[in-house]
Structure formats: C-alpha cells, structure tokens
C-alpha cells in the first residue's frame, strides 16, 4: 500500500484504523490506545520538535501503521499460541455419551452458570443506573446543570461497559476490549458532547444496560431452577437412604408423587433424572454464555467502530 506518511498523531491513528479494518473491534480499540500512548509520549519527550517532525521518524521507531497493524494481527495470535497450553488431543473420536458429559470438565460451563446468577444483581444495577441517568440528565437538560451530569453519566456508562466486557471475557473467553474507547481527535467541550450523543455506541450501551434487567431475571431463573431441580433430585433419594439408617433422628420420611417413585427403582430414576437435568443445565449455561458474549459485543463494542 502506498499512502503518504502520516504527519500528525490523528492521521497516524486514522491510517492504523484503516490498516486494521475488518479485525476484531476489541483489538482495534486496544491498538489505537497503545499507539496513542506511545505517540503522545514521544511528542512530549521532544519538546523542541513539532508534531510533524516527530511523526517523520515514527516509521523507523514505532513502525509504520501497516507494520504495527501486522504486529497486532500476528504477534497476538502467536504469543497466545505459545502461552496457551496445547489443547488435549483425543486419539479416538469421543462417543456421544462422553461428549454429552464432557461439559462437566469445561470450566466455561461453570463460569457461565455463575454469570447467569450474577446477572440478576448486575442487571438490576445497570438498569437502575441507566434509567436514573437518562431521566435525571434529560429532565435537568433545560437548566445548565443537566449537561455536565450527562457527560459524567455517559463517561460512567463507558467504564461500566468496559468492566462488563472484562467480566464476559473472563467467563466465556470471547475477546473484549481491554482499553477504554478512544476519545477521537481533540475537540472542544461542546463538540465532545455532540460526539458522545452522536456515537451509536453510546445508545446501544444504554440499551444493553436497560435490557440486562429482564435478561438477568430470565438467566437467574434458568440457572437456579436447573441447579435446584437437578441437585434436589439427586440429593432427595440419597438423604432418604441415610434417614432410613437413622442418620437424622425423627425426620419424616420422603414421599414423592406418584408413589411408585418412593421405591428403590424410583430413587434410581430420580438420581438419573437429576444428573441428566444438571448436565443439560451446564450445556444450556455454556450456550447462553457464548450467545450472550456475541450479544454484548454487538451492543457494547461493534457499533460506531
């Protein structure tokens, strides 16, 4: 590619963004952030030189936008591959039963299940935050105090979106941004506010926060019902056997409807059903984790980048 060498930091960042077009939006956000840190530090370290003079030497020190883009593409994949433990190799293809129960050895299933239960709390928090922020700053916008409130509110929303992204990456492994949103070229205060309001990501982030309340309730109910029914079905018969040997003193004995369940065969059936439900719950949790990561990325990362 033959492009004129960038003469300013903004131009460099624009070219870097172009070179990374089509990459994971989280990776682009990180790359722009790193480049800006370096370039601004370099300009500050050379007070005698103009920005254009400093940028002239950048291609031989930091690297031209194309080179840096290639580094982010390759290095990240390569270093990740070198650091990650090799995936377990299976010589014979696993039977469907083994595959089905394999979910018990997948940490993502457990973390996703945990996330599903956590969303009741985070969802409520996000929802309250978004609704309060919108209504307070919108109603106060007619007096001047609403404007700074709005700026603080949207700034906090971005930090929360970043934190939610980190949480989702920890839980599902889906790549999410590790740095805050790049603020764009320097501009006046009012222009910044205009950018914030015009950025589609601002609005999709708020939509995500509002939607997290109903979604969190659904996730919580799914996770807790699956766990409670599964564990209950396994634990009931086991505890009943202990009770018959007098482990719990005068506890009343367990009766199940229909009554044939209160028999040795019925107990085996209950435990088997419990194991099945628990396994399905873990599968569902893992699936929900994956889908939710995509949903979060579509609303918190992709728009406007």
């Amino acid at each position, binding site marked *: 590619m033959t492009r004129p060498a960038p003469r300013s930091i903004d131009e460099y960042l624009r070219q870097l963004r172009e070179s990374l077009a089509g990459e994971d939006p989280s990776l682009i956000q990180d790359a722009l952030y790193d480049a800006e*840190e*370096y370039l601004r530090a*370099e300009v500050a370290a050379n007070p005698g030189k103009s920005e254009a003079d400093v940028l002239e030497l950048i291609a031989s020190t930091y690297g031209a936008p194309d080179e840096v883009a290639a580094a982010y593409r390759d290095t990240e994949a390569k*270093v990740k591959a070198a650091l990650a433990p090799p995936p377990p190799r299976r010589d014979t293809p696993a039977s469907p039963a083994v595959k089905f129960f394999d979910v018990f050895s997948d940490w993502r299933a457990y973390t996703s299940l945990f996330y599903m239960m956590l969303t009741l709390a985070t969802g409520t928090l996000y929802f309250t935050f978004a609704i309060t922020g919108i209504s307070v700053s919108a109603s106060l916008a007619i007096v001047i105090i609403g404007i700074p409130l709005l700026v603080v509110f949207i700034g906090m929303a971005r930090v929360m979106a970043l934190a939610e992204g980190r949480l989702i990456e920890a839980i599902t492994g889906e790549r999410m941004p590790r740095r805050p949103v790049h603020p764009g070229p320097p501009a006046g205060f009012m222009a910044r506010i205009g950018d914030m309001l015009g950025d589609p990501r601002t609005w999709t982030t708020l939509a995500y926060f509002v939607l997290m309340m109903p979604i969190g309730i659904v996730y919580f109910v799914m996770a807790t019902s699956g766990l409670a029914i599964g564990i209950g079905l396994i634990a009931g018969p086991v505890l009943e056997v202990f009770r018959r040997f007098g482990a719990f003193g005068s506890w009343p004995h367990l009766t199940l409807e229909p009554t044939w369940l209160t028999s040795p065969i019925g107990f085996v059936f209950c435990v088997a059903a419990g194991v099945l439900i628990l396994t399905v719950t873990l599968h569902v949790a893992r699936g929900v984790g994956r889908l939710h990561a995509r949903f979060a990325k579509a609303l918190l990362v992709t728009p406007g980048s």
Partner: protein
Amino acid sequence: MDDSQAKKFQKELNGGLVSLVLLAVLARTDEDLYGYEIAKRLQRANEGEALFKEGTIYPVLRALSAGGYLTSRIVPSYSGPPRRYYRITDEGRALLAQWSGIWRQTRNFVDRFIEGTEP
C-alpha cells in the same frame, strides 16, 4: 544481499524472542514500567538499526498480561491517554527462567555450527 530477506529472517526470529526480552527487562527492575519507557530502554540498548519496531512490543505486553505473567495498573498522564504500568509476577519469573534456559541451549547449539566447532 537482499535486504527484504534479512528482514524476513529477523521477523521469524523475533516471534518468541520479544516476549523473552520483555520478561527479562521487567525482571531486572524494581520499578513498574509503561510501554513507552520499555520501548526506550530497548532502543538505548540497541546498537545500530532496531531489531524490532517498538510498536510490536505493546501487543506482546498485553498478551503476557492476559496470561498472568505480568500485572498492570493504570496511571493518568498529562501527555496523553492514561498509561498502563507493568510489573512481572512470580509466574512471569518462572516462565522467564524456563525460557532463558531454552534460549541458552538454542544459542549454544546454533553457535556450535556457525562457529564450526562441530564437524
């Protein structure tokens, strides 16, 4: 000699070496360092043309940090966006010890042939 061939060979070599050098730099200092500072240290240590572009160390730092080999904290800065300061963890030191061993072994092995002490 063709310059692009030399560059390509250097790039192939750098694949894992950048992470090794970064771990070594962070292991040898007691202070936390941020990306730009590390880049400048490497630049000073370099004689002649840089072995790798400074822009390539940032993604490696981030990957090492994600792997738990470095910890980082963010400090606001006057000159630009907040800086991320890195410090090596115990896991990072263990990795460095292991990789240093591999590096010495590889270097000795290659040198034996290049310097012709091996038939």
